[in-house]
């Protein structure tokens, strides 16, 4: 019910990702059963829910990393194989290629797609410029700080100009300053390019702050607890965290979370 109300909310938005009748179980115990959800085009959706409720699994199924049992997932009407997506992992250290310099890590997805070298250079340089990078990209990943490595990972995910960017807990291994920096960059990218983003977060503040909508999930077997819109204007700044709408949305999300997590 709540879901229906939320989806037909004020501004009618076009769905970019459509998940229909999705079912998935692990060793006989169901995680999702006939699960439906839409992700609006050009918006940021945060997924939030109790530990182990299947946030990562949902995202990985949409991104085509985890196979689904049954159902249908479309990105702009196409299958994930036919779409261009970017994915940012929580464990940036394990997602980077330590044998390549940071710059070549960013160039990697273009090079394997056999993009001409001149264009590779132009595309990498342009994404690096838009992030206003102040560290040396000719270093190897292990010579960079955690935040710098995660920034490189995000640039690598964006260099192919994906239709959708997936981020699984991108901030959880970062300090506060770096979290603020990357938050700002993501918002920046979203405003400039209109890239659809799906972010899994275990931090409610992060989840709400960046989001146009917050997808709150229940414990397993997982359903939608609430799909909460957060229509605060952009750019959102440090002051936005004192905005009544932000405070209200956050405390509402927290209330839903408490109800679901300890139900």
């Amino acid at each position: 019910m709540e879901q229906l109300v939320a989806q037909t909310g004020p501004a009618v938005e076009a769905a970019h990702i459509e998940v229909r009748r999705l079912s998935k179980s692990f060793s006989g115990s169901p995680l999702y059963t006939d699960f439906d959800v839409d992700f609006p085009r050009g918006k940021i959706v945060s997924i939030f829910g109790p530990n182990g409720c299947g946030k990562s699994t949902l995202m990985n199924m949409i991104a085509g990393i985890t196979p689904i049992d049954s159902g249908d997932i479309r990105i702009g009407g196409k299958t994930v194989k036919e779409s261009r997506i970017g994915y940012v992992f929580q464990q940036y250290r394990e997602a980077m290629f330590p044998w390549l310099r940071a710059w070549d890590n960013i160039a990697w997805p273009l090079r394997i797609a056999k993009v001409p070298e001149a264009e590779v250079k132009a595309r990498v340089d342009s994404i690096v410029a838009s992030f206003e990078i102040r560290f040396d990209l000719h270093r190897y990943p292990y010579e960079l700080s955690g935040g710098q490595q995660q920034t490189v990972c995000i640039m690598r995910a964006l260099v192919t100009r994906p239709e959708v960017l997936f981020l699984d807990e991108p901030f959880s291994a970062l300090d506060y300053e770096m979290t603020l920096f990357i938050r700002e960059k993501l918002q920046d990218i979203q405003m400039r390019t209109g890239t659809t983003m799906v972010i899994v977060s275990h931090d409610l503040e992060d989840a709400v702050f960046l989001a146009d909508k917050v997808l709150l999930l229940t414990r397993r077997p997982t359903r939608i607890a609430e799909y909460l819109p957060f229509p605060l204007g952009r750019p959102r700044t440090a002051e936005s965290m004192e905005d009544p709408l932000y405070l209200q949305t956050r405390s509402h999300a927290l209330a839903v979370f408490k109800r679901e997590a300890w139900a």
Partner: protein
Amino acid sequence: MTSQLTQRLLPLVGPLVFFATWWVAVAAHLVNPVLMPSPVDTVIHMAAALATGTLGGDLAVTFLRTSIAFLVAAIVGVPLGTALGASAPLYRSVEFLIDFFRSTPSSALIPLFMLIFGLSDANKIAIAAFAALLLVVFNSAYGVMNARKTRILAAKVMGATPWQIFREVLLKESLSQTFVGLRTGVSMALVIVIVAEMFIGAESGLGHRIIDAQQVLNVKDMYAAILVTGALGYLLNVGFLVIETRFIHWSGK
């Protein structure tokens, strides 16, 4: 300043104490001089034998045998191990064999190899190559199998084909483990070559020289040959470590 100098000299302490103890033991007649010449005599003898005698020739022969055995092991072992590691079912099906032969002292197979290859030079090389091969195969396979799952997923989600994932991710990722295999493999090859030279009718090589010198109680020559063998093993190991840190710069980071 001083502490820096001390730091530099620290590695020399062990060898100096070793030679000093040796020297004192001989000078104080604590050991039978027939069984143990003084270190000074030994080193002088070693230098002379290297410069004018046949010790250099024996060293060259042993080095050559070890190198050939190692190269065979590397050329066969790295591709084989990598292929095994890339296919879990394939590896599972030969895992026991590899583990079994890896746990069998290779010297136990010397008589078997004598049956197959006779007392030839090829025999010594074959068994050393076999022993090294097991280490190389095991480590290469292990390196590929233990590639970070996240890294493979990252490549996959960026649109890499299975072949690109194998070549650009699995192979690169396995390199540091492969180098461990190569380094232990070359040490193993040297061990087996020395043992084979001792016991499989050899006419040359350090192993042959050591056992020959022992038979005629030419202890000075025996110790000289042992020192040279040790130096060879040490240098091979250090050489590989240097290449490894240069080449696999990300290893352990």
